[in-house]
């Protein structure tokens, strides 16, 4: 540690400290918090007769009215009674398995994508941030974006323009809310969670077309319209591809029960057509190559993202990657048996392993394909994907009627 001799070094030192604090809080302290406070609660859930819902009925209000009932020396109960425990809605939706967890995962998915793509492309990829293979590159990008100016175009519809990143983030969060990570780790449990997820996914195109419209830019507008075309025409095969799952799992829309129905065989085996259709349509929903027409940079600059700068751009990107995680998790739950797996590894870990494999599958085509044209895309969707998904439903009906599954 060299002595601080001038103002420049002082500023540099302060920024360094701020940087490491900002890195350490999400990277170290939250995981430690999770290990120390959350896991015991989880295990107590497993091994006690109490159901999880009975433990979280405490709130901060209780503390205000009768503080004497709290035991301040037992941190677990203190936190949980404050309404901040691992089973509280606030913790679950904002930390684990909610937005924070997904955002950190997404930042590593971005790094992972860049490294993977670089390996396919005969080069090295990010290398310096974080000293080891550039593992902190996403955070470096995040800080770069934070210090950029937010520019709102003169003719833009400012409230809508600025509302789009927040709307996308909220929608991504809403998508996460219904996706369980294991039998006990989930944010909300609803008998209609699959329908809710599909409903949330169908709101995304409205937000993108809003972004295209509000930017007051021709390229944004074309991009927004393309996004609308693409997402709406791929919405139908997307929804049809999961109908077979619902039929096979006995008419339930609950994701937990769908996972439960896959105890014997994963649905990817009988529903291979559905899995293919889901994979392709999910790629189109995510605007990933070869379906990245709404942000085709060589044709329409950056599509509906053209006018977004700084953290508005960053937030939109983050929301896209959270959506990627959400759709991969959905694929895992619907087709790969969710958290089912051999015993020694906990279910949540199985789930994460499968999800990361699915994410890899979503990332790989970017290294091997170009972009296709809008008319070919829509033709492919209506001609092939809808047909395949109907065939998939037919297979499901046959399997169910004959009693094989």
């Amino acid at each position, binding site marked *: 540690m060299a002595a601080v001799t001038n103002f420049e070094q002082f500023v540099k030192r302060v920024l360094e400290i701020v940087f490491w604090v900002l890195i350490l809080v999400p990277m170290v302290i939250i995981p430690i918090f999770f290990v120390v406070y959350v896991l015991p609660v989880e295990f107590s859930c497993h091994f006690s007769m109490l159901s999880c819902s009975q433990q979280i009925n405490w709130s901060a209000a209780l503390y205000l009215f009768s503080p004497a009932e709290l035991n301040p020396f037992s941190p677990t109960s203190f936190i949980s009674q404050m309404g901040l425990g691992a089973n509280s809605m606030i913790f679950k939706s904002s930390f684990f398995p909610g937005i924070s967890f997904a955002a950190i995962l997404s930042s590593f998915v971005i790094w992972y994508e860049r490294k993977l*793509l670089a390996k*396919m*492309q*005969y*080069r090295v990829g990010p290398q310096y941030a974080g000293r080891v293979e550039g593992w902190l590159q996403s955070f470096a990008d995040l800080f770069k974006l934070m210090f950029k100016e937010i520019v709102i175009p003169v*003719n833009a*519809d400012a409230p809508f323009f600025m509302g789009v990143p927040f709307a996308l983030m909220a929608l991504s969060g809403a998508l996460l809310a219904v996706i369980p990570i294991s039998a006990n780790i989930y944010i909300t449990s609803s008998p209609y969670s699959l329908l809710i997820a599909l409903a949330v996914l169908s709101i995304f195109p409205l937000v993108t077309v809003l972004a295209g*419209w509000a930017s*007051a830019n*021709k*390229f944004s*507008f*074309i991009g927004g319209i393309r996004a609308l075309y693409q997402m709406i025409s791929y919405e139908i095969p997307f929804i049809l591809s999961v109908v077979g799952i619902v039929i096979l799992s006995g008419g339930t829309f609950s994701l937990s029960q769908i996972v439960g129905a896959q105890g014997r065989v994963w649905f990817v085996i009988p529903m291979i057509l559905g899995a293919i259709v889901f994979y392709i349509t999910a790629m189109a929903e995510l605007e990933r*190559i*070869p379906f*990245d*027409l709404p942000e*085709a*940079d*060589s*044709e*329409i*600059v950056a599509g509906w993202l053209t006018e977004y700068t700084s953290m508005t751009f960053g937030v939109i990107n983050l929301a896209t990657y959270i959506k990627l995680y959400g759709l991969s998790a959905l694929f895992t739950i619907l087709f790969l048996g969710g958290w089912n797996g051999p015993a020694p590894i906990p279910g949540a870990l199985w789930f994460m392993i499968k999800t990361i494999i699915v994410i890899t599958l979503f990332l790989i085509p*970017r*290294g*091997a*394909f*170009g*972009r*296709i*044209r*809008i*008319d*070919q895309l829509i033709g492919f969707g209506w001609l092939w994907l809808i047909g395949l998904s109907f065939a998939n439903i037919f297979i499901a009906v046959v399997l169910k009627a004959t009693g094989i599954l």
Partner: protein
Amino acid sequence: MSMGVGSAFSTEKISEDKMSISVGPQHPGAGHFRFTVTIDGDTIVDCVPDPGYVHRGAEKQTEYRSFLQSIPMLERSSLTDVTNIIMPFSMAAEELMGIQIPPRAQYLRMIMSENQRILSHLYWLGIQGIFLGHSTVFMWPLGDRELFIDLGQMIGGARITYSYAIPGGVRNDMPDDFKDRALKVFDYFEARLKDYEKIFFNNPLVLKRTQDVGVLPRAEAIKLGVVGQTLRASGVKSDTRIDEPYNFYKDLNFEVPTYESCDTWARCMVHLVEMRQSMDIMRQCLEKLPQGPVRVKLSPQQRAQAGEAYARVEASRGALSFHIISEGSTKPYRVKISVPSFRNLIALPRLLIGSHVADMPAIYWSLDYWPVEADR
């Protein structure tokens, strides 16, 4: 907010259901070049090219320089194609000076020229890849290009601007280890081209994007006077290396690829086959390379006879010709460069009108239009 009203740059009023978009010079799909397209839905109904953003007056500049001093300035007009753009200038200057250059110099010029063709085609392939959204085909050619840049550096002594083919021959002989290295590079790259075929030229999504897109029929290609890959992809077996063999091309065996489908895919394939051909030509040149001097000693202020010379070569993008008028001084009186990019530009509105907006970058770059070369 009024979408659909004409842009600030368009001179005509466009009706409400059409939209005019300005592509370039700050658009990722156009280099130092702008074209305004009017679109009706997803169809382009009008296209107005507007070159000239990088016009540097190279022709005027030559009036102030001797023949030799023009070389470093002229080759900066076309950085992917430096040897080919100064070679016809040197040939025309030699014709006016009344000198003949030694055979070894001509062979070395051929080697550098074919190396340059591969460099240019690899650059083209990279940009065509990224214009079709294929980022891997952007990275691979620009990586493998490094090998050929190294080859050029071994002879020319620089990475890009060699100033190699000067009036009176070439600057220097090639180093002794060049042949081994070059053959090694060709073997590597020919194996690598199979990967390129799999990932780009036979990739079904790329085929979908390029086949039957931007069709320029044979008769129209001849009438518009397009050159190079655009002409050969339209089924015309025309190549200056065969039509009017310069250097020692008449002693070599090589095929000129032509395709009958006349579309963007054919233009892509011509580039691929030409890269193979160039390596083959370089192999033959290295085999046949005669011994002897490589440079005729000329004064830096060499005087040319009065008269006219029109020299043309097959540059990487097509026939490139220099028309030099001399009045018997040390400096050329008038130099006119006819560059392939400028001659192919006329095909751009013809091909774009009636096609999709999404095909715009693919068609534009399949013409291999290099704005800096076209503007001179």
